[in-house]
């Protein structure tokens, strides 16, 4: 008697069934029973949530999507600096995943990934595993605390917040600003590029100055930038500091913070010790921990090299990386993560149907910075795939605002409304 294909499949199913009884078997159990072709997505931020929605939408719900996210809610990092300035609350930026589940049939698994087996194509969680045909990781960034003596995750959560992921630390930093004496110093340390959201730290300086101007006008914002110059929208930020917050914002280039004295609130650079009332150290960044777990953070041990037609990792097959974790000449922004997610979603659908992915991905980035409660400016670019370079390159015509304006401040609010709707609704 020989086994035909059907018998073989039955045996396979029996094998999985045994896995459901941990007492009997060595294997962990499948958390969500797999039906047909499945994409597992790890990380429900801008990139991951968008990929989930668009794979369902563009495959006419034919491909199963399981989205793994450790938080119960989505909190937008874009615009979270305005929580410091006081024109928004963190609740304004917080949204649930209900619509993704109900409208698109995405299976949401709340939990932390423990390991990724790229050979057996499984994602391991504490309570079992998820098998995949293709995996997308959208792990965002993690912080290299070890590069700053005295700093670690615990210190960041309790006394020297980075607040570079919107949430509890954003609220903590705002509280510290409220407790700061008039005439105090808010020191902001910016890591060497690449980091998440290039204009973000300079926008933060504006938002902090905006709060201080109205509440503690004798105070100062001191920027310690590890970079040799302002990395984004330089002229616009310098004008905003000069016009809106005269004498309040001081900028120091080439000032990497290497050590902090937690109790004394002192930041040490190569040249000086800076004593602050509020210390906001944004550490150097790398791809989120899941990238290292998957073994795909191959660029300097920090970022992930991908094929820009599919966002498939250059290290492992059937494993895609999108968003801030990707090594590219693309800005690490929310809009960019959603644009990459859509290229990846379209490519995965084609690949699963045995078709060739779009050979000419062309994507857009639009990024606003709020310099007060009302005024904003932007940077906008089209990026297209260059086959010769195998890279995404900036197209002609991109650039920044001619000047900051209230019109752009209003548009920035609508940008947030539209992008959150596109990602989650």
């Amino acid at each position: 008697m020989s086994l035909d294909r059907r018998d073989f499949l039955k045996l396979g199913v029996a094998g999985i069934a045994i896995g459901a009884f941990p007492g009997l078997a060595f294997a962990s159990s499948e958390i969500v029973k797999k039906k047909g072709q499945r994409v597992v997505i790890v990380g429900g931020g801008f990139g991951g949530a968008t990929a989930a929605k668009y794979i369902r939408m563009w495959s006419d719900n034919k491909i199963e999507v399981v989205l793994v996210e450790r938080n119960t809610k989505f909190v937008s990092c874009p615009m979270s600096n305005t929580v410091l300035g006081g024109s928004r609350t963190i609740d304004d930026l917080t949204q649930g995943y209900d619509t993704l589940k109900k409208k698109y049939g995405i299976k949401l698994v709340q939990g932390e990934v423990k390991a990724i087996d790229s050979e057996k194509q499984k994602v391991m969680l504490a309570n079992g595993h998820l098998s995949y045909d293709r995996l997308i990781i959208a792990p965002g960034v993690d912080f290299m605390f070890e590069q700053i003596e005295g700093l670690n995750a615990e210190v960041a959560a309790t006394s020297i917040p980075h607040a570079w992921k919107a949430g509890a630390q954003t609220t903590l930093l705002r509280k510290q600003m409220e407790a700061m004496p008039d005439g105090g110093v808010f020191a902001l340390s910016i890591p060497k590029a690449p980091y998440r959201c290039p204009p973000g730290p300079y926008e933060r300086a504006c938002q902090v100055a905006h709060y201080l101007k109205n509440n503690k006008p004798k105070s100062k914002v001191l920027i310690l930038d590890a970079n040799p110059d302002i990395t984004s929208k330089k002229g616009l930020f310098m004008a905003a500091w000069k016009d809106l917050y005269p004498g309040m914002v001081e900028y120091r280039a080439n000032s990497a913070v290497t050590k902090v004295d937690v109790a004394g609130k002192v930041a040490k650079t190569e040249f000086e010790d800076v004593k602050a009332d509020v210390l906001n150290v944004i550490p150097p960044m790398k791809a989120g921990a899941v990238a290292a777990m998957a073994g795909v953070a191959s660029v300097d041990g920090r970022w992930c090299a991908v094929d820009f037609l599919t966002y498939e990792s250059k290290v492992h097959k059937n494993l895609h990386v999108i968003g801030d974790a990707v090594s590219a000449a693309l800005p690490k922004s929310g809009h960019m993560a959603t644009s990459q997610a859509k290229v990846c979603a379209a490519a995965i659908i084609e690949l699963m149907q045995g078709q060739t992915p779009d050979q000419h991905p062309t994507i857009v980035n639009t990024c606003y910075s709020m310099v007060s409660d009302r005024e904003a400016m932007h940077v906008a670019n089209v990026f297209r795939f260059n086959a010769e370079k195998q890279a995404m390159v900036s197209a002609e015509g991109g650039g920044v605002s001619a000047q900051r304006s209230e019109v752009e401040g209003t548009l920035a609010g609508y940008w947030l409304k539209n992008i959150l709707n596109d990602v989650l609704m």
Partner: protein
Amino acid sequence: MKMIKQQILAIVCAIGAMLPMTSAHADNDKHARNLSASCAACHGTSGHSVGGTPVLAGMDKQLFVAQMQAFKSGARPATVMHQHAKGYTDEEFELLAGFFAAQKR
């Protein structure tokens, strides 16, 4: 017999001519869809803006192309769109216009 052969040949040729066309057409549609997807951050999913920016879904094709050309040339001043318009080719304007025109408002 000869006629039948010719007819068959004609049919085969016709099918042959149609096949790559249909497939190229589908690819073009998908490329247009993929191109348009990046606009959603400001203009909503498939051009269904939820506020502050024009609804592109269902927009007249000629009007869309004319507006993009005007942004590109500078004839129509803009805060952001002149920069994006300069990044696209005329052919891409047509593809974007076709996709948005086909979306239900």
